[in-house]
C-alpha cells in the first residue's frame, strides 16, 4: 500500500532524512520509532504532502506521487497529529472542523457523515457544536481521528497520536485505533517514541536514528529482544527496565 524508496529530505544544509526505504502492505500497521530529531516525523509529513523539498520515490497503492498532491489524494490518505490542542482550529466548532473536507470535495449528506464519524469515534453527538477548548484532551484526539475518517481514507498517518495524553486516555485511543483498523481495513503508519505503543499496535517496526532507518524488524522479534542495532537495544532496555518496576 505504501512504498518508500531512498527518501531524502534536506533542511538547508542539514540532511534530515538520509535515504530511507520501506514498504507497508495493505491493511498492515507499520511503526517508526526514534528520538526527536531522528527524522521520523519528517517522513510522515513528506508522505502527507506537507513538505515539497524531497527526493526519492513515494507511492501509495502502486501510484507514485510527487511533491504536489491532487485533491483526490486526500480522500485516500489522512493524518492524525500529535498535539490535539494544536491540531484543531481554536475558533471553529467541531461541526465546522469536520465539515471542511466534505465541503472541499463536494460530498453529499454532510450532516449524516458528521454524525456517523462522531459515532465511529464514540463521541457524544452533543459535542458537535462545541469548541475544541470545551473538550478534554482525549475527546479532542477523537475529533482529530473523526476528521481523518470522514474522508473514508485507505491510509492513516499517525504522528505520535497518544504522547500528549494521560496513560488511561492513551489506552482508550489505542483501542479505538485498533478497532477502526480491523473494521475498515485501514493501513496505518504510526510514528512514536514509545516502543511499547508501537509494538502493541504494529506488526512491523522500523527504527530511525540520525536520519537513517537503522533496523527493520517485526513486533515479535522486538519483544523477544533479538535486535541487532545498539540504538534499538538501548531503547528496548529502557522500556523493559521501567516496565519491570510496575510488576
Amino acid at each position, binding site marked *: 500500500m505504501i512504498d518508500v524508496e531512498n527518501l531524502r529530505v534536506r533542511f538547508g544544509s542539514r540532511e534530515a532524512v538520509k535515504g530511507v526505504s520501506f514498504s507497508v502492505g495493505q491493511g498492515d500497521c507499520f511503526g517508526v520509532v526514534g528520538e526527536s530529531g531522528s527524522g521520523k516525523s519528517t517522513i510522515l509529513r513528506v508522505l502527507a504532502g*506537507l513538505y515539497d523539498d524531497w527526493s526519492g520515490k513515494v507511492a501509495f497503492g502502486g501510484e507514485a506521487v510527487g511533491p504536489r498532491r491532487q485533491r483526490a489524494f486526500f*480522500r485516500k490518505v489522512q493524518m492524525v*497529529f500529535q498535539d490535539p490542542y494544536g491540531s484543531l*482550529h481554536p475558533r471553529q466548532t467541531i461541526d465546522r472542523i469536520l465539515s471542511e*473536507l466534505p465541503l*472541499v*470535495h463536494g460530498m453529499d449528506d454532510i450532516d449524516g457523515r458528521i454524525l456517523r464519524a462522531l459515532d465511529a469515534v464514540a463521541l457524544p453527538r452533543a459535542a458537535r*457544536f462545541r469548541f475544541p477548548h470545551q473538550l478534554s484532551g482525549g475527546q479532542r484526539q477523537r475529533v*482529530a481521528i473523526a476528521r481523518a475518517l470522514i474522508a473514508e481514507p485507505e491510509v492513516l498517518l499517525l504522528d505520535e497520536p497518544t504522547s500528549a495524553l494521560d496513560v488511561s486516555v492513551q489506552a482508550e485511543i489505542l483501542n479505538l485505533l485498533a478497532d477502526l483498523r480491523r473494521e475498515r481495513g485501514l493501513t496505518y503508519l504510526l510514528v512514536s517514541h514509545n516502543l511499547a505503543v508501537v509494538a502493541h499496535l504494529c506488526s512491523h517496526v522500523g527504527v530511525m536514528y540520525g536520519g537513517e532507518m537503522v533496523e527493520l524488524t517485526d513486533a515479535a522479534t522486538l519483544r523477544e529482544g533479538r535486535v541487532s542495532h545498539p540504538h534499538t537495544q538501548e531503547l528496548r532496555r529502557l522500556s523493559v527496565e521501567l516496565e519491570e518496576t510496575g510488576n
Partner: protein
Amino acid sequence: MILSNFRSWALDEAPASRSQATWGSAYRVWLSLRRNPLSMIGLAIILAFVALSLAAPLLAPYDPAAQDLGNRLAASSGAHWFGTDELGRDVLSRLLYGGRVTLGMVVAVVVLVAPIGLGIGCIAGYFGGAVDTALMRLTDIFLAFPRLILALAFVAAMKPGVESAILAIALTAWPPYARLARAETLTVRGSDFIAACRLTGASPWRIILRHVMPLCTPSLIVRVTLDMSSIIITAASLGFLGMGAQPPSPEWGAMIATAKRFIFDQWWVATVPGIAIFLVSLAFNFLGDGLRDVLDPKGR
C-alpha cells in the same frame, strides 16, 4: 414569550441543527457583550449618533447652510443651543448634518481599508517567499510617506470632494493593517491545524479566507477602533486644506479647522464638534475592546 422561547432555543446545550448552533453562539456573543458595561456604553453612544445623524432633517432647527451674517459667532442661547459659527450658521444643525458626512466617511474608509489590509497581510504571510517580499515592499513604500502628504497627493490628482478624500485616506491607511495581519498569519501558518486544513485538499485561497483571516480579525478590530479618531482627523485636515468635504457641506473636522482662528474668543464653535469627535472615538474604542474579548470563544 417569543423572546423567552428564543432564549431557551438558542442557549440549548445540544443544538439540533447548524442554524440553531449559529444563532446560539451569536446570542452568547451578545450576552457576554451585554455583561461588559463599557462596551455597552460605547455601543449606545454610537447608535445615538447614528440615529441623530439619520434623523437630522427632522431634528435640525435650521438649514445647516443658511447664513445669518448679522448673528455670527453668537453664544449659546434658546434659539441656537450651541451658538452660531463665523457665517452665522446654527452649530447644532451643522453638527447633526455633519455627522452624516463624518460618520459616513469613517465607515466607508474602514469598509475599504480593513479587507485590503487583511487580504494583503494574510496573503503575504501565508505564501511567504517572493510574494511576501513583493507585497511587503509595497507596504513599506506606502508606510514611508506621512499619511496626510500621500493623501493630499492622491486627492490633488483626483477632484477634491468627499469621495476622493475617502479613497485617499483608504489608500494610505491600509499598510499598518497589512503588517498586523501578516504578523498574525506568520504565527498560525506553521501550526498543526493549518496543516490539517491543507490535508483536506483545500486550496490556499480557501485556507486563507476561511481559516487564517478569522484568526486575524480580532486584533484588526481593535486596531481599527483605535484608528477611528485619526481617520476623522485626517479627513478634517483634508477638509481644512480644501481637499475634503467642500463648503458649505458640514463636516466635523472641517468645522473645527475653520473655528481654529477664534478658538480663544468663541471657544464653543470648535469645542462642540470636538466633543462629538471625542465621544465617537471613545465609543468605538470601548466597543472594540469589548468585541475583541467576546469574539474569542475561549473567553466565553
